[in-house]
């Protein structure tokens, strides 16, 4: 990836409605515009791939109202985030090891009251993040889909947003809407895009280019440093890779196993391994080199 552009600011930039206040540390929010595009599948398998690369990883179930990380991982712990928030147990008791070797903190059931963004939800969640993030090399936030205030709040805490989309038109439209909201309301300038269930090689690159072109036109660009310099997009998409449409994924999901454990050699598994390598290099270890 080329060097990231210096922070572009629109002339007379608007104060963001939801301030970006990333928790100190590496937090990657995995999100999507539309539901059912494989967010949780990506979170879990990416966590496994990053763990295999020697990183200490936590996946945090941040889809507080409609969590299903437990279903994907086939884990049913006695203690969950719900018990931490309601004071029934310590944080340590609710963090468990997932099959891929990484840690997970599951939302658990009975979190209907957390599907609305109330001051308690914000406060509980913020404290939790500040407590847990420093203990890991990277924390993946498995968020809900869409642009509800709960999702936007979770995203505002993340240092990076990994947006999952499929090539379907509805998924792309909703991905575009999410990017636009993150740019205009949170002032986010970089968003990573992962294209899941891609049918052909190069799908993801073309989709990224198309989204970027429309974003440049409607969200805007700022002029370069001088007349000769290229103008910079206000929000820039970084394509992290594609996961090809793969029968092995469907099999693993139905068996509720991690793809990386179920079919390590499947094309989708290989792709996730490559994406993990790219994310480690460009996101997790990016600052260490400086």
């Amino acid at each position, binding site marked *: 990836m080329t060097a990231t552009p210096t922070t572009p600011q629109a002339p007379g930039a608007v104060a963001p*409605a939801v*301030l970006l206040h990333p928790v100190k540390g590496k937090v990657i929010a995995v999100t999507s515009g539309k539901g059912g595009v494989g967010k949780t599948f990506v979170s879990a398998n990416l966590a496994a791939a990053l763990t295999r690369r020697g990183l200490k990883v936590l996946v945090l179930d941040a889809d507080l109202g409609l969590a299903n990380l437990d279903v994907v991982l086939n884990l049913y712990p006695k203690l969950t985030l719900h018990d931490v928030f309601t004071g029934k147990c310590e944080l340590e008791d609710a963090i468990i090891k997932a099959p891929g070797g990484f840690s997970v903190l599951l939302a658990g059931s009975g979190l209907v009251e957390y599907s609305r963004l109330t001051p308690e939800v914000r406060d509980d969640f913020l404290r939790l993040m500040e407590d847990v993030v420093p203990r890991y090399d990277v924390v993946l936030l498995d968020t809900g889909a869409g642009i509800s205030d709960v999702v936007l709040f979770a995203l505002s805490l993340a240092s990076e947003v990994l947006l999952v989309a499929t090539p379907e038109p509805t998924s792309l439209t909703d991905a*575009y809407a999410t990017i*636009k909201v993150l740019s205009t309301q949170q002032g986010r300038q970089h968003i990573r895009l992962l294209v899941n269930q891609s049918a052909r090689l190069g799908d993801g690159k073309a989709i990224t*280019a*198309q989204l970027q*072109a429309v974003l440049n036109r409607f969200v805007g660009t700022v002029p370069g440093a001088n007349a000769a310099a290229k103008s910079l997009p206000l929000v820039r998409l970084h394509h992290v890779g594609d996961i090809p449409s793969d029968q092995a994924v469907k099999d693993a999901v139905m068996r509720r196993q991690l793809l990386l454990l179920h079919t390590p050699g499947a094309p989708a598994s290989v792709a996730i391994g490559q994406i993990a390598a790219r994310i480690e290099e460009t996101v997790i270890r990016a600052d260490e080199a400086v």
Partner: protein
Amino acid sequence: MEMGALRFDKVDALLRQAGVALAPPSEVGDARYLQAVLDALCDLSSTDSLTGLMNRRAFLSVLEQELDRVTRGGEHALLLALDIDHFKRVNDRYGHPAGDHVLRVVTKRLREAVRPMDNVARIGGEEFAVLCPQCPPSFATAIAQRTRVAIESAPIELPEHGPITVTISVGGAFAQPWVKGNLSDWLARADQQLYRAKQEGRNCVRLEPYASADVSAEEKGLLFGWSATDEQVADHGQSA
């Protein structure tokens, strides 16, 4: 407490002058009388005597409460600063009683133009303010324009001089949900927009810019290349 130790002559004079009639202690008892006096004094010190609107002091305390609510509540609040255009000319040409009349008519029209839960205040000579709680930015322009149009729509009839046209300039600023705002900053931002409205010709509304995150049909169309232009294709290559 001994009522005899308290002096009521000043309060009595003030309340009588303000037209507030209280039942005497001999009728309602000492405690209820004292409470009524306190309430009446609070009302007086928070009301603008000319227009009956909240005065600046009372308005600031309402704003402060609203900032707290917005911080907890997740819904924008809009603060409008409104100023009668060229009000000095009215006073100079027709005299102060005419100016007072204009202030009262403007008050009445503003009250009718805003939503029931909005608070109107007179915060300076010819300067008014409106606090609109729970006002998403997408609705703000409509609300602000309604106040401007309410003043412009019909001339104000001066008792001895006939009709005159009066207009107002309106500036507006938002309190952001979940963000602990600062009262003087909010007021200053609304004032800044009012200044802009004055600079840009008066009788207009200027609100803090707000970027809409809605996705238009045109954007959707472009996403799928239904109306791809050359410019877009060129851009395509650059941003890949």
